[in-house]
């Protein structure tokens, strides 16, 4: 037998034994789990455990100390591992920095490879869309309808439409993310209005493609890597110096791939960009003197991918920005940093779990007495808005960019 044949044979045996060797870039994640001291502090804080109990979702501790110890048995974790919303609370309260959210992805990737039949059907459907369209959502069948959908919403929200700018060597690439591209188009448009107002030299992608986060979350590493590569090519081709996005998930994920793939380009969420690059002074000038809007009390929701996967300073920035807007009072909710349940693709297969997770937020939001909830992420807004509506709450929900764009003076 030649060495090549031998290797083929061995690979086959490994597959039979359900072993996918750890890749080099996974070893650090696996190693972090060895710090777990089984204390269960994370269980006390896990929003999914709080929502459905430790019997249904055995919690981050179980992922660290039990479910991730033996790769040949990863398949048997399929009834638990997909219920993690990836909010990162466990990692944050863990004294040992155990990287459970990444371990979840790693285990999911192994199940995806060895037992695709155990991957929830809802995730396969998302996967088909991503593979076909390079987008996390089925694009509009008819582009004209997409335009119409955008226009009526801008009209309703009183946000002006500005032409897309696509050019080389702009300072900034504005990357709206799939949700704002296909569904919450007003967020994409609002961000453009804001960028224009502050004279940011920006461009959009000529052909929007997903950053790869949803694929990574369902364990489809191959697609996730392909999409990351595709985005890298596009960013390099445009010659931009910075990437700015309005999506929390894209912020953390593109920050990550920019580092992993050595883009040498900083990645910002729009709130960070506004706070750091535009500056609160200019924001105050623009937003601080309008008499047009009546007083409004807003509460905020902190997207997990911003506060726990990027940095909690992002939400400090967001609140500072809100505070300079005239007429805006901020009422902080007790559960402002609690996961909305929309993460980890859980809603695609176990909607009851996702919706249970958000309940705590709803109660706290109502308690604040705010009329409006603002969040800097179109996915969190959708999840919370839907559930607030279901609960009969009168609190309205806006993406932060829409809220700002509405209050900018017309230029």
């Amino acid at each position, binding site marked *: 037998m030649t060495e090549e044949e031998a290797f083929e044979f061995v690979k086959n045996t490994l597959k039979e034994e359900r072993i996918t060797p750890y890749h080099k870039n996974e070893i650090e994640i696996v190693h972090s789990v060895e710090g777990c001291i089984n204390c*269960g502090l994370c269980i*006390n804080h896990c929003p999914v455990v*709080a929502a459905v109990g*430790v*019997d249904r979702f055995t919690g981050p501790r179980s992922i660290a100390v039990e479910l991730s110890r033996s790769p040949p048995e990863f398949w048997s974790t399929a009834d638990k591992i997909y219920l993690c919303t990836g909010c990162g609370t466990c990692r*944050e309260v863990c*004294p040992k920095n155990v990287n459970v959210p990444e371990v979840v992805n790693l285990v999911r990737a192994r199940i995806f490879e060895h037992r695709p039949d155990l991957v929830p059907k809802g995730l396969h459907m998302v996967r088909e869309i991503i593979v076909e369209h390079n987008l996390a959502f089925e694009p509009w069948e008819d582009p004209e309808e997409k335009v119409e959908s955008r226009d009526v919403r801008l009209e309703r929200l009183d946000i002006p439409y500005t032409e897309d700018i696509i050019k080389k060597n702009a300072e900034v690439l504005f990357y709206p993310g799939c949700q704002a591209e296909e569904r919450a188009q007003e967020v994409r448009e609002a961000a453009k209005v804001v960028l224009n107002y502050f004279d940011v030299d920006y461009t959009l992608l000529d052909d929007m493609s997903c950053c790869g986060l949803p694929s990574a979350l369902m364990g489809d590493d191959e697609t996730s890597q392909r999409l990351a590569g595709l985005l890298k090519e596009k960013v390099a081709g445009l010659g931009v110096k910075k990437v700015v996005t309005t999506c929390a998930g894209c912020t953390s994920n593109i920050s990550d791939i920019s580092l992993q793939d050595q883009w040498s380009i900083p990645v910002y969420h729009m709130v960070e960009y506004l706070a750091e690059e535009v500056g609160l002074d200019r924001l105050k000038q623009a937003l601080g003197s309008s008499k047009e809007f009546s007083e409004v009390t807003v509460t905020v929701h902190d997207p997990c991918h911003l506060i726990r996967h*990027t*940095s909690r*300073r992002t939400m400090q920035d967001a609140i500072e920005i809100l505070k300079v807007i005239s007429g805006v009072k901020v009422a902080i909710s007790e559960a402002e940093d609690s996961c909305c349940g929309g993460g980890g693709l859980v809603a695609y297969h176990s909607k009851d779990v996702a919706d249970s997770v958000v309940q705590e937020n709803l109660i706290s939001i109502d308690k604040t007495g705010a009329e409006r909830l603002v969040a800097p992420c179109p996915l969190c807004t959708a999840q919370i808005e839907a559930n607030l509506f279901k609960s009969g709450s009168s609190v309205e929900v806006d993406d932060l960019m829409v809220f700002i764009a509405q209050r900018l003076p017309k230029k």
Partner: protein
Amino acid sequence: MAGLAAGTIAAENGLETLMLRTGQSATAYSSGAIDIIGYPPEGLALKEYLPDTEVPFKTPSDGLRAILTLFPFHPYGIIGFGADDDKVVESVIAHVKESISWLKERLAGSCAALIGGFERNIYPITVLGTTKPTCLIQETMWSETLNANPDNVLIFAGFRGHAEFNALSTTRAYLENQLRTGKPPHKVGHCVLEISPFGKPYNISSIELARHFDHDGSMVDLAAAIKKHVDQLGATHVAIPPVLGIEQALQNKAELQKELGVEVFELVALPPSVPGFRLQRAMDRTFKNAGGTLLIGHQARSAIFKNDMIESVVAQSPRREVTISPKTVILASGKFIGGGLEADENGIRETVLDLMPVTTNLHPAEEVRPVYHTNVFSLSPDGHAVLGAGLAVDMDFRPIDADGVERAKNLFCAGSILAKYNYSLEKSGLGVALSTGLAAGRNAARMAKEVS
């Protein structure tokens, strides 16, 4: 606890205070009881030197006196370093006493409201049926009359499917102890209740019971479930694991007592417990109410030193790095759990600023093999010396190097990162954290004001 105490006092002193935190530690891990001092640091060696002192210490001041006599470099001793020789003991006692009052005040009315005081150690019952000396417990864990009357009848109530507490074993262990010592109560029973927060009588965690009992009306079912056992045994007291709620526990206790007509109290649970969760939550709120800023998820990684001062601290979040330039820095990074210390087979390291750790005998610990500082017995009154390793400090709680010189003039430390403090053995955990936290916080505040 040390960091929160230090941060709160600094903020109360009008300083702009930022707390960097990654991961929760001793406070969240605790049983919720605040130990001051229960046993001498080096086991029963005390008997030789202070034959008249009763062990466990009857009062915190007995303990502090013993410690200050035998182990002046214990963190409690350092509190008194600045005082005149003849006033050392009294000044430490005064400081610890004041620390306790400070904490009780801050937590009054919170979900972790405390009861007990400096006058004596108390002996709450643990979920193992043992008792331990401590100083303050949460009001929910308090029973006024349990040991007062020989006719008292105590019933331990557990929950089916809640493995963290087994009422039968606890009952047996506690009863045998009572019979051995002759102390009341002598009549002890147990019962198992059916409460399933998510509809299933298995894999029930303490936190979900606590959350469940935070809901309005949840006491009705619980009272009804306990009632028949109380009546059956003629119980005068009911002990349950500490799951009576997070925010509502005290009200729930009152409601249960009203419904049942007997005293109800929570046991001391093994960490991480619901009372620990309450304490962490209440302490976080205290800090924020004092005006402090809590930056969670940021791990201090290193500092830039200039001359004899820390110029800035570099902290890392999952995808961002920040540099902060404070006037003073307090390091309260904990021991091995908290991650302030790390060890391999070659020695012990301080993880954030690469300071010099020392053993419990105050020898440099950088080349100390941990196993040589352990006891052959897993659980013995002599404890494991390696858990007493940490930082050596000057009288202001500034870490010092091998020459006894402070690493930086504006760097202080507090809590279990301090050397010569083996809390598991001494039953002194949160007490030392609190006292040294307040001391370090005040020192830092004083310095910050001087600098500006």
